[in-house]
């Protein structure tokens, strides 16, 4: 059954929350236009009868090599922590995780 769907402003707000991306309201019309243009490009695909088709999966010629489950030498904690935008000693520093009720709107 063909079901053409349209992304509206309400769904865009939900998607922005799920994707953890901010978007200024003035950019909403342009983004909605582009998203819906892509969805229209994809509508025809629903014409195909796929009722007896299994979703795609890869086959293998020879099972991939597996690593031994043993410790290996690695670059070390400091090299990772050097990349941290905000750091407190040996820790990544992050803002408060448990938000106040007044701050959690839209979550």
């Amino acid at each position, binding site marked *: 059954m063909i079901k053409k769907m349209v992304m509206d402003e309400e769904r865009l707000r939900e998607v922005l929350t*799920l994707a953890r991306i901010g978007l200024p309201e003035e950019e909403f019309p342009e983004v909605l236009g*582009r*998203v819906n243009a892509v969805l229209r490009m994809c509508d025809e695909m629903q014409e195909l009868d796929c009722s007896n088709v299994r979703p795609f999966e890869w086959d293998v010629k020879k099972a991939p090599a597996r690593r031994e489950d043993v410790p290996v030498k690695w670059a070390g904690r400091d090299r990772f922590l050097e990349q941290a935008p905000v750091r407190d000693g040996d820790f990544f520093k992050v803002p408060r995780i448990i938000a106040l009720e007044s701050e959690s709107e839209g979550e």
Partner: protein
Amino acid sequence: MDFYKLSAREIADGVRNGRFKSEEVVSVLLERIKKYDKKYNAVVTLCEETAHKQAQAVDAAVSRGEDPGPLAGVPYLTKDNFCTDGIRTTCGSKMLKDWIPCYDATPVRNMRNAGAVLIGKTNMDEFAMGSTTESSVFGPTLNPRDDSRVPGGSSGGSAAAVAAGYCPIALGSDTGGSIRQPSAFCGVQGMKPSYGQVSRYGIVAYVSSLDQVGPITRNIDDMSLAMDVLAKADSNDSTCDAYDRPSFSGAVAAASLKGKKIAVLSGFDKESMDKPLVDAIDRTVEICRAAGAEVAEAELPITMKHAVACYYMVALGDASSKLACYDGMRYGHHEDGKNLSEMYKKSRQNGFGDEVRRRILIGTCILTRGYYENYYVPATQVRQLIADEYAALFKNADALICPISPALPYKKGLVEEDPVRIYLGDAFTSTANLAGLPGISLNVGFTPEGLPTNVQILGPRFGDADILAVAAAIEKKAGSPAIAELDAEGGC
């Protein structure tokens, strides 16, 4: 000596035989990049210090009587989504502009173990999302064949670099055509190997079920040399098949079209294509026939009608979850927020460019209830139908000849005017990624205006050596492309 004109095989042979040193070749190519790339912007990071050290190590090994490997002293560039230990890896994004990995991607390690010398990292569409190399945080790359046009993408920097004579081999990644289309736009040879042929460990993922790594070169012999080095099982990539690979160079050395069954794609709208690209297919078919191949037309009705839609649904759904790891906390672009959620949103809003944000939003949307059942799930089923259609075709054919892109290289700026048209440009290439097939972008000539005309050669999954042989046999007749004539003046 004009070292920049040499093929990878010529450089490796010269270095191994002691006729010249890797250090000399590397110095010449680094100078060439510094002279011309202010204009073309194909290279975003030059690895001068490490390149000289690597080249000196290769030369020292030769002087000790050791064999540094099949790519001894050959300078190469890699797309900037391959992790390089101690060298920044940006994916063309503000999000990773200062990120320095602490390990090498497996293809980079394999190239080094074979004696190749990494001289720099190339420009790309941000996170490999695009086909024009205009969305990079470093600005656009220009096409060395015509600087008013884009080099294609997303591996546009790698293809432009090979066309410009910066190196004989550059590495790219191909999720929906990102090696083959820029190779076509820049008039060089590019290969997307079969899914599972080359390890992707250390490649920053766009879509794990579609991404594949491959070489861009100026001739098929160099491509086979690179494939011998790159195509290896890897216990760090569970999608990399462990089968015993054939010798790709061996297949190319024995190349012949006699008795080969070659299918030619029909049933698509040739009227909407640029005519020189239709003519290029006809010319290639004639070469095959004249060399003793059996040529027959073949259609792929489901594939040609639904591949682009299927590709974008699969790709964007997967990409939205892949790119969830950029949180502005452990590495990458960071912006302060009054709580964790605001920090995520601001870091991702300002760290990603417009096209990446759009693709994440579409991908997130199609994984939500309603859209998932109506778009994403059907796409995974249509993908199976496409794979089945190709499998049926390759029961009766050794290779398929078809276009790469319906258009000659785009003029700059088209992506902003008509993004859906750009998406539809993936129709002939994305199918190989959906079905996991190997594909080669082969240059068979140029228009009178100097624009390249490439054709695509596809084969059954793991038929990489066979299509390399077909490409080599066609190249013998069509010739391999020359280095572009560069002009140091002007720029982006």
